[in-house]
Each structure stands twice: as C-alpha cells, then as structure tokens.
C-alpha cells in the first residue's frame, strides 16, 4: 500500500514539475553587459533587413548572438507575446486585441507588397503596356469574377485560366494586399494557399499562368536589385488611364524603393514594418531596437528598403526610451 501511494505521489510531483516547466522562461538579456542572445521571428518582409542589422550590430558587439527566423507576421506576434521570441517582426498594423495582451510595437522601416506574374504569361505584353487596375485585381483576388487572362486585358479570345496563389500562413503581406483590394483580411483572398514568401514566389516562377504577391525583399532580388528570373512585377494602373505610365512600371529594386518612398506607390500595399516586444523592451533588446532606429538606419536603403520619415523615427525612439 505504502509503495503504491509513493508512486502516485511521484507521478503528481512529476506532472507539477512538467506544468511548471511549461510556464518558465529564461531571461536572455542583462542590462549593462552587451552579451547574450536575441531571438527574432516573424515577417518574411523584414527578414532580409533584420539579418543585415544583426550582422552590423554584431560587428560592434561581438558577444551578442542572434537567432532570426521567418514564419510570417502572425508567428512573430504570437512568438513575441508568448515569450518564444524577444522580438517579433510584424508586417502589418497591430490589432487592439494584440495591444491588450501587452504587444509593444515600433515601426522601423517601410516596404510594400507587389503583384507578381510569370514572365511567360500569355498576355504579358498587354499587361506591361496597360497595367492592371486596382479594381481588376480585386475581381481576380477577392471576388473571383475574373477567371481568365483574356478578361484581364480585354482579349476574350485568350482563354487561359488565371492560376491564383495566396499565402497559407498568417502573413502581413496577405493582410495589406487584401486591404488594398477592399477586403478586411487574409481570409478574403482567394486562391491556392502556399506556405511562406519564397514558396509563393516559387509557385509563380514555375507556373506560366500564375499570379501572386510578394514583399519587396522577394519580389526583387536584393543582391542584384533586379527581378528574380522568370517573374515580372505587374504595373498597377493607379490613374486608371488604361496605360502603364513611367512611374507605374517597376522593374528594378531602385524604382520600387523610389516609388514607395515618394508615395507614388499606393499604401496599402506599401506599409510600415513593426518590431513587437511583450511590454516595453529592456536591456539588450532595448539597446538593439534603439540602435536600429538610429545607427541602423544607414543600412536601410542599402538593403533595398525605405526609411521612415525622421519625425516618425524620433517618435518611435521616444516610445522605446
């Protein structure tokens, strides 16, 4: 009898330990000494910029380690709020429900989402000459009224179906793209769900009839500044004159950055990318975010992203300090 109760007792203690282990987290950053590990996860939009910042920050503080992973804006938010990451990268606006749960955020840089088609698209010449209007994109992505490439360019004899792709993971890009097209959120976008930014790009690269949307850092090759092989960024016919004008044709990274910075590219899909922490950051994480908002800004245009206006940056800085 005694032995049995001992076993029950042990089992109870063990479960208590397991439960306890679930709740605890190790503090990663110590104030003062710049040493430790910063874990960052979330938006693919911010991922290339963040790796660059981490690299430069490490040159100044070699004892600081970074652990950066993608996964989409939603993952960044969930990881930051649950303590799985120190900083969440969130490429959309922060929702009130998230603020209520302690999400603290600052904008750090701007980019945009671009519609992308395959370079071998059957009506590519018309698309490049005329562009596609916001309303046509809405009928493709949200309502699904337009189903063939012929309908897009007013050539009904072209019967090739549109192969519509969207993000399957909770993505900031999907949300701003839906908002641009008059939807509320990602759930309003139709199409085949593909996982992650590179996955979506790859689906379009391999499918001549495909259309999707990508963040700046994937719609363009950040290393060369050109379009990735096999894709073309669709000119959005913003002034609806039925022609793709100079500013509307975006075929290099430099043109894209310029269009976003000058405000000629519509917002959304241009948007501010946010860094999210659970509560106001302290210690190493705070130092890193302040560095991003100050010294880190010099690498922004180099990396192909768009800087926030100086007053927005100083406001963000006040918020973190």
């Amino acid at each position, binding site marked *: 009898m005694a032995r049995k109760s001992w076993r029950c007792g042990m089992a109870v203690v063990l479960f208590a330990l397991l439960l306890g282990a679930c709740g605890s987290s190790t503090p990663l950053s110590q104030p003062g000494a710049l040493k430790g590990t910063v874990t960052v996860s979330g938006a693919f939009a911010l991922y290339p910029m963040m790796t660059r910042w981490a690299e430069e920050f490490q040159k100044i503080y070699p004892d600081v380690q970074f652990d950066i992973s993608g996964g989409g804006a*939603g993952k960044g938010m*969930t990881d930051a709020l649950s303590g799985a990451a120190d900083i969440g990268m969130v490429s959309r606006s922060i929702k009130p429900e998230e603020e209520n749960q302690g999400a603290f955020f600052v904008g750090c840089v701007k980019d945009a989402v671009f519609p992308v088609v395959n370079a071998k698209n059957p009506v590519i010449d018309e698309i490049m000459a005329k562009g596609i209007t916001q309303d046509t994109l809405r009928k493709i992505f949200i309502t699904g009224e337009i189903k063939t490439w012929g309908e897009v360019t007013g050539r009904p004899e072209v019967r090739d179906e549109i*192969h519509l792709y969207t993000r*399957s993971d909770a993505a900031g890009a999907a949300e701003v793209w839906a908002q641009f097209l008059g939807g509320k959120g990602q759930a309003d976008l139709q199409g*085949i*769900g593909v996982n992650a930014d590179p996955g979506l790009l790859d689906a379009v690269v391999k499918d001549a009839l495909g259309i999707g949307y990508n963040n700046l850092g994937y719609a363009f090759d950040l290393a060369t500044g050109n379009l990735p092989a096999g894709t073309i960024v669709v000119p959005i016919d913003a002034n609806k004159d039925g022609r793709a004008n100079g500013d509307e044709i975006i075929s290099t990274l430099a043109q894209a950055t310029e269009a976003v910075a000058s405000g000629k590219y519509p917002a959304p899909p241009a948007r501010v990318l946010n860094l999210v922490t659970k509560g106001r950051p302290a210690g190493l994480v705070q130092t890193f975010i302040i560095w991003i908002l100050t010294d880190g800004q010099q690498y922004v245009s180099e990396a192909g992203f768009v800087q926030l206006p100086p007053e927005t940056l100083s406001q963000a800085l006040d918020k973190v300090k």
Partner: protein
Amino acid sequence: METESNLSVDTNKKRPALTWRGRSDRLAGRLFFIFSVIPVGLVLLIVVMLVIKSWPLLKTHSLWLLLSGQTWKPEEGFFGFWPFIAGTFWVTAAALGLAVPPSLLTAIYLSEYSGRTLRALMKPLLDLLAAIPSVIYGVWGTLAIVPIIQNNLIPFIRQYVGNIPLISSQNSTGFGILAGGIVLAIMIMPFIIAVLYEILDNVPRGLKEASLGVGATRLQTVRWAVLPKVLPGLVAGIVFGASRALGETMAVLMVVGNVAQTPHSLLDAAYPLPALIANNYGEMMSIPLYDSALMTSALILLILILIFNITSALILRRVLGRKWV
C-alpha cells in the same frame, strides 16, 4: 511487481551483505518507473490542456454545428470544421489508395519470394525512407509532383476524361489532394510495408510448406493459404498507415493548396486539420476565439488519431498473439 519487491526486501533482511545491491535495485526500479510515466503523463496532460483551451468555443457553439459547419470565417465568428475534417479524410484516403497496393506487393515479395540477401538490403533502405524529414518530401512534392500534375495530368484529364466526377475540378494549379496523396503515400509506405512484412512473416511455416507440398505454386500459396490467414492483420497495417497519414503536417501543407472548402474531387485543393493548425498558429492572439478554435481542431485530430491507433493496436494484438504491439 509486488512479489518481486517483497522478495528483494526479504533478501535484504536475511543477507545484510546485499543491502546496497537491494537498495540500488529498488532505486533503479523507481527511476525507471518515473521515466516510463512521463510520456503517458504528457499525453494525458495534452488532452486536458486541449479540452481546457477548447472550452470557450465548445461552450458557446453547438458541437454538431462546429463539426458539420461548412463556413470557416473566424473574423465573423463562423467556425465550421467540416472542410478540414473532410480534407483530412480525402488526403488520407488518397494516400492509402496509392500506398497500400504497392506496399502489400512489396511485403509479399520480401516475405515469400526474395532471397535473404535482397531482404537484408531492402529493409534498411526502407527504414531510411522512413527517416527522411517530412519537409524534404514537401519540397520534392512542390518541385516535382505539382508541376507534373499541372502540366501533364490536368490537361490530359480535361481533354479526355473531364466529366468523371471524382477527378474533374476547377482547380488546375496542381496543388491539391492528389499531390498531397502522392507525397503522403511515399512517406507512409515504409511503415505499412514494415507492419505487413512482419504479419506475413508471422504466418506458421508449416502452413506454407503444406500448401507448397501439395503442389501449389507460390502465388497460389500466397493467395489461398497466407492471405486469408492474415486478413485482419492487413487491415490493421492499413489503419496504422492511416493514423500516420492523418497527422502528417509539413509535407502535406506545402502541396495541398490550403483552401477552406469541402473537396469533391481528387484534384481539388483541400485543407487538412494539421495544416490548419500550423498555418494559423500566428492568428491565435488577434481574433477572438481563434486560439480556442485551433485547440478544438487539435483535439478533433488527436481523437481521430487515437481512434485509428487503438483500432490498429487491438487488431494487431489479436493477429500477432502478443500482449503488446
């Protein structure tokens, strides 16, 4: 257990020289017990946690409407799980349909026909197949399977057999149930083969020899002597494969299309339960009841898999005549 430990206590009393031995033995027993309790405890813990987390949704929505509902619009408060449950079964059924026949033939070949050398070579290779990470299968699926379906299979089907219900579809991208089924089939084949092989190998040698002895060919022996004997075991092996297929996430997620609709054709896109959880983990914090809905889908999946696993374990236990499988 009781008698054994009593015995060791008795030994302690009679032979003081063995005190340390006796104690260390008892200590080891306790230690091993603790570690063997952990996995069982974890499963229970997970079930309890899932029920607690699902409760907010289960409290406010009727279970029947949740399970049979066709509309999934969390932002508007519609949580219909049917498209995901149906998607899970479609992909699993497709995978089983593709995996079981070749697995059965392979297992029969390995146990009845092949020589010892080939068998010794094949088994580790099959185990290796089972050890490849699922994301690699997923990448292979998107790079190889999806384009083949998109560029070759779908145009062919549309041209020649476009009106057959189970294969005609609006979706022509190649992402869908068939792609998911093919990838999954290859992933679960090693497991099914291993189980089927063991069952076939377990058939008494005398039975086969008697059949061969009266002049039956090997094919006749397999067909009339071996297969009838192992039929329940084959069912168990297949159910075992199904329970693996049900829970597979990454590889399926990458090729299945992730559209929240109830599929009607092999070429439709589907959205299985594991993909739902993995994809939307990120929305958990922002939409009311969403975390509860994801936990409910996890609970549904867990219950489905438990049912499949227990069924296959019970049948296997009967077939192999063992207490534990």
